[in-house]
């Protein structure tokens, strides 16, 4: 219902922003949205949220664990030895 109303050019900013999560979720094309044509604040909000989501998708794994992590894993595996990996368990 809210989404249907979202195409109504008489909707307020509050109504538009209430509908926004669902509009994003259904990947609605907001480029020609009546409310955004007349409301620079909401247009900026939409641009920013789209920008944040797009930048998040570009984040790469850049952090390496310290060498101590592998040392601890090896140590724990040695203590685990009586229980070999499941593939070779009888």
């Amino acid at each position: 219902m809210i989404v249907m109303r979202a195409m109504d050019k008489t909707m307020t900013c509050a109504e538009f922003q209430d509908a926004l999560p669902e509009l994003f979720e259904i990947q609605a094309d907001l480029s020609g949205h009546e409310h955004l044509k007349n409301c620079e604040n909401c247009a900026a909000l939409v641009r920013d949220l789209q920008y944040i989501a797009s930048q998040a998708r570009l984040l790469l794994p850049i952090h390496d664990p310290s060498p101590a992590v592998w040392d601890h894993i090896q140590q724990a595996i040695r203590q685990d030895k009586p229980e070999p990996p499941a593939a070779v368990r009888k």
Partner: protein
Amino acid sequence: MAGPTQPRPATQHLRRNPPIAGEQEAIDKAREGDARAFETLYAMHKRRVYSLCLRMLGNVAEAEDLTQEAFLQLYRKIGTFRGDSAFSTWLHRLAVNVVLMHLRRKGLPQVSLEETLEPSQDDGPRKDIGARDLTLSGSIDRVTLERAIENLPPGYRLVFVLHDVEGYEHNEIAEMLDCSIGNSKSQLHKARMKLRDLLRTGQRKEQIA
């Protein structure tokens, strides 16, 4: 104008988890208990698993502990990997579960998720109404965004990292976090709104400085 929630085709995880040369051989040998092969798998995936833990937790010591726990679980469970999904997808899901188990023991995510269901006035979407200000587009570098994500409340951060960074779908997140799909969608939107606030505040401070 496409929405920020782009379609997540089946290739989404493949894009994030492309096949790695030598991985299958290492998996096969590690399943037979080959320690060198397991070390190879660790070298291939440590950065991705650790980065995931760090982004979800925002704490280096905890992220290292849980990276260790994730790989120990991998060692114990690698024999159960059947190849239905990419190995890296399977491993990252295992790591997510390790982090969530840890957070549940601490009691953080449930509390945060519920708390953030009723956003404070600071987090509410209508804060922007009437506030003409900067737009972010094109102005945020990776380090700034990473720092802002670190500063998200834990409940917001979990959903944002899982959906927008790691590419999980709302139904998967709802299952992982034991919440409704609607809750996951709502948290994601609030997380993006909160990030916008954090990023804009940072920009204003930079301008003043």
